[in-house]
């Protein structure tokens, strides 16, 4: 137990010099825990300092407190982790008062460190989170929830040593064992608040009896927020205000309070502090690993940090829907990918050779416990990546570089190309598939289900392979998949322009509906999927009716921020219908036209039928090379 704390009265039978059970001699009072006093004592046979915690005299004869005190001893002893204070003995002194003898710790708790420092660096916070998660992870594996994770219960041993501190979790006084045969061993009363208010989880604030390990993870995230920003995420002038904040309000993004933090930290907090335990991290290890990656890598650019929604936006699913293939792509004879011709047509600017690429990656990224996925080019640079955890593109590039170096040695065995590599580490899983000269790499926690991930990745690789074949090569299909060229670079992009004209009467695709379901499931869960299914009984909405369809769905979402996010993401799945000449069904393949680089000007769509009568602006003579248009998997040459 910690070697500091305010002095307090002690019971008459407990005093300096008293011998306890013939084993310990009390030296001095160290402080008070949640249910009793803590003394520095000397172990008489081992001749070492120990900390002895006594249950308060007033609680001595209360059965529930005695059992809770015993539980604390059992919990700490069972966990047996270097990151949980070590219990040496448990018993009753002469007057019947229970005691727990623990290792004597020297250092300070995180609460005192925060008092002194205000806020802590990401590196120190990561160490605190990492150590706490190791201790909590062990406890959770044994079915024990701490239920009072707060800075004062996280003790840093050796904080001033060069080698850095070791964190130990203190005070399992309100811990709870997983229910056995319907009995809560901690004897918690329903509706009773357990824990320290500022660090409580929403379920604790509700006084719910269903508090499990995920509550500890929430509390630890609150501690992490406090460490990084210097303030707790939920506050208020009264306990009621605080509890209301915990159960209903979103915290201020940490990056707003501490500007130097990576943006990935905000995503981490969003998940770790989710009101719904089911949407939080699945384990202490997941939480720690994700935190390490969030704070350890500074994602500074839009392409370095890609969340699910931002990638979906980058994908700009076309009128054909989410499962867009190379269909909506214009490629010139040199293989350059179409880019946006003007800011006015930003909606289609991000159409690249394979909008299916981000979607293929997203499917794998959403497998449970996947940290991120990337498609890496022959030059070792990721051309697309997707990480819900904010894993930057550079991490994938670094891994691929090492993989290449290591696999070179296999050339002495055979010369055929690699198809798959799987690496199973203690705390992570890395899976790789090769698609032509490109590499698909997935990084997940060790808790990823290997078979599920493998099957999912194989499916994605197969889809990418198909895209590459349809495009006439991976280099064409995958290049610039992260199509976030700034406007000023557009004029330098050689190639063609792209216009996508969705037919207003055309129903949106199944893939669009599938993606829409995913988006609505974020705020509404299964209810969202059900709502969409019910509304589809009369058929899919047309492209023209789609915005109204989205609007009606968004009305189901109560939270305004979530409603806006859903609405924005959903509307981006289908480009708005713009006025233009009608497109005859048989000739839709040429609903766009390529424009030579010299003009860089968007032109009205033409079809083979109307092209002679409604010609596009005359191209520059030098740019008369044949233009190749890909549509719905077919190559079409536009003869100028």
């Amino acid at each position, binding site marked *: 137990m910690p070697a500091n704390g305010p002095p307090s009265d002690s019971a008459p039978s407990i005093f300096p010099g008293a011998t306890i059970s013939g084993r310990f001699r009390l030296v001095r009072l160290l402080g008070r825990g949640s249910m009793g006093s803590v003394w520095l004592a000397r172990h008489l046979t081992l001749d070492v300092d120990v900390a002895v915690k006594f249950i308060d005299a007033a609680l001595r004869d209360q059965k529930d407190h005695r059992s809770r005190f015993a539980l604390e001893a059992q919990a700490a002893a069972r966990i047996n982790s270097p990151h949980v204070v070590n219990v040496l003995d448990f018993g009753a002194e002469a007057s019947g008062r229970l005691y727990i003898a623990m290792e004597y710790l020297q250092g300070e708790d995180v609460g005192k460190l925060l008092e002194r420092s205000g806020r802590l660096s990401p590196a120190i916070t990561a160490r605190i989170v990492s150590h706490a998660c190791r201790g909590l992870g062990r406890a959770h594996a044994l079915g024990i929830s701490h239920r009072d994770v707060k800075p004062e219960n996280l003790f840093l041993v050796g904080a001033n040593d060069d080698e850095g501190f070791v964190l130990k979790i203190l005070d399992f006084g309100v811990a709870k064992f997983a229910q056995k045969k319907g009995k809560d061993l901690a004897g918690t009363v329903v509706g009773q608040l357990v824990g320290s208010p500022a660090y409580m989880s929403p379920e604790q604030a509700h006084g719910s009896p269903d508090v499990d390990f995920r509550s500890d993870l929430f509390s630890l995230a609150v501690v992490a927020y406090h460490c990084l920003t210097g303030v707790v995420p939920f506050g208020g002038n009264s306990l009621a205000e605080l509890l209301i904040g915990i159960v209903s309000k979103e915290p201020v993004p940490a990056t707003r309070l501490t500007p130097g933090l990576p943006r990935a930290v905000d995503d981490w907090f969003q998940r770790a502090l989710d009101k719904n335990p089911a949407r939080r991290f699945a384990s202490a290890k997941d939480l720690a*690993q994700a935190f*390490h990656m969030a704070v*350890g890598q500074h994602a500074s650019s839009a392409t370095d940090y890609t969340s699910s929604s931002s990638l979906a936006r980058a994908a700009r699913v076309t009128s054909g829907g989410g499962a867009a293939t190379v269909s909506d792509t214009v490629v010139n004879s040199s293989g350059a990918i179409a880019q946006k011709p003007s800011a006015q047509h930003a909606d289609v600017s991000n159409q690249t050779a394979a909008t299916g690429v981000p979607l293929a990656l997203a499917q794998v990224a959403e497998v449970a416990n996947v940290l991120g996925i990337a498609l890496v080019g022959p030059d070792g640079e990721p051309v697309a990546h997707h990480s819900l955890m904010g894993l930057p593109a550079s*991490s994938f590039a*670094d*891994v691929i570089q*090492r*993989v290449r*170096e*290591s*696999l070179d*040695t*296999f050339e*002495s*065995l*055979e010369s*055929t*190309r*690699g*198809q*798959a*590599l*799987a*690496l*199973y*580490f*203690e*705390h*992570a899983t*890395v899976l790789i598939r090769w698609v032509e000269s490109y590499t698909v790499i997935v*990084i997940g926690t*060790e808790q990823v289900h*290997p*078979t599920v991930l*493998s099957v999912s990745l*194989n499916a994605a690789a197969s889809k990418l392979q198909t895209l590459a074949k349809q495009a006439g090569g991976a280099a064409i299909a995958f290049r610039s998949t992260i199509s976030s060229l700034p406007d000023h670079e557009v004029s330098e992009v050689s190639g063609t322009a792209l216009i996508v004209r969705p037919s207003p009467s055309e129903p949106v695709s199944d893939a669009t509906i599938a993606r829409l379901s995913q988006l609505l499931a974020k705020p509404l869960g299964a209810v969202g999927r059900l709502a969409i299914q019910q509304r589809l009984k009369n058929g899919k909405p047309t492209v023209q009716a789609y915005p109204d369809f989205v609007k009606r769905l968004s009305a189901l979402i109560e939270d305004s921020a979530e409603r806006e996010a859903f609405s924005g993401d959903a509307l981006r799945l289908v480009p708005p219908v713009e006025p233009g000449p009608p497109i005859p069904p048989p000739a839709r393949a040429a609903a766009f036209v390529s424009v030579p680089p010299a003009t860089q000007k968007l032109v009205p769509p033409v079809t083979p039928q109307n092209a002679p009568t409604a010609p596009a602006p005359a191209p520059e003579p030098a740019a008369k090379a044949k233009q190749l248009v890909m549509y719905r998997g077919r190559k079409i040459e536009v003869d100028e």
Partner: protein
Amino acid sequence: MDSLLKELKVQAVASSSDAGEALESAGSFDIETLCAVASVAAGQLRDIGDLLSAGRLERWYFVTEQQAYYVSERSGSRLVAAGDAVKNAEATSKALHRAGR
């Protein structure tokens, strides 16, 4: 080793030192080279674990167009196996790892 060879249905299986020296083997393959290659590759693949703070490398497999190579890492040694290229190498990799423990 013989029983493991039958169980895994691979061409060869071997145990090697961490440095890549073949200790025991069964089946027909260039065992010496296989163990040496696995040793060199494992050393570099372990760096990925450091890069990701992922801890110890426990097992891995590499599938080419023709072959599949399976490795189960142990403290100071490893088990390696080589077989035909398969679509789902996961099961064999797991089985080898179980045998290695």
